[in-house]
């Protein structure tokens, strides 16, 4: 019986690239903490994961001409899941990055990334145990 690796790994295989992408977005926020006019962004993780696990459920705009802009997925994540953060205390220069908030989100995201990795790792170890039969 062939093993469906996608089904076996479950949601974790889809969560990992999303976590990695969120790290990238948060890194950009932290790097731009002193850039005038920069608006902090984040990924709506719940919506992004739902869209990644079930591509049919995500609303897609139809493109009937080659020059229409597609909402199709770019590198696995729909572009629409990237949202602007609501600033708690916007700065005079238009920058909406709250460094403490971004750092907290970055740490949280990094821990969750490690958790997803651990889940995947134990899945692979289980598979290896089954294969070697020891």
């Amino acid at each position, binding site marked *: 019986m062939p093993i469906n690796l996608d089904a076996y790994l479950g949601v974790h295989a889809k969560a*990992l*690239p999303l976590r*990695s*992408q969120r*790290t*990238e*977005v*948060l*890194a*950009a926020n*932290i*790097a*731009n*903490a*002193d*850039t*005038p*006019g*920069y608006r902090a*962004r984040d*990924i709506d993780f719940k919506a992004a994961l739902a869209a990644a696990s079930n591509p049919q459920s995500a609303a897609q705009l139809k493109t009937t001409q080659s020059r229409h802009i597609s909402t199709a997925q*770019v*590198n696995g*994540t729909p*572009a629409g899941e*990237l949202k602007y953060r609501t600033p708690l205390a916007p700065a005079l220069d238009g920058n909406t990055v709250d*460094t403490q908030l971004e*750092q907290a989100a*970055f*740490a949280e995201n*990094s821990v969750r*990334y*490690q958790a997803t*990795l651990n889940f*995947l*790792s134990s899945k*692979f*170890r289980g598979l*290896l145990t089954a294969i070697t039969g020891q």
Partner: protein
Amino acid sequence: MSSFKIFDVAGSGMSAQSVRLNTTASNLANADSVSSDPNQVYKAKHPLFEAIRAGLGTNGASNGVAVKGIYESTAPATARYEPGNPLADANGYVYAPAVNSVEEMVNMISASRSYQNNVEVMNTAKEMMLATLRLGQ
């Protein structure tokens, strides 16, 4: 692999902050560089940061920072009455640059903290990538 872009983003942030630290050092070092002509005196320099809109990341998710330019403060030089100074003009005045030392110190601390943030981001991203490489072992 998209994680490599984190290094680009954090690296651009570090380089921008070090430019800011450089201008702060220059301003503080020249705080007492007096001149006999108010137009010739040193002017405080400040960098202008700008987000790199395109080029990095998937669907524009990650913006690096670029130093758009360095602008010079337009604040007028402060005149000091020092008739004994060899640089003094006919009326006995020398002109000192309009460098606000307190403001520069605050800038220095802010730049240094932002730099550390970017280093921390880079370290965490590195650890995450190494953990991914060890996946399944």
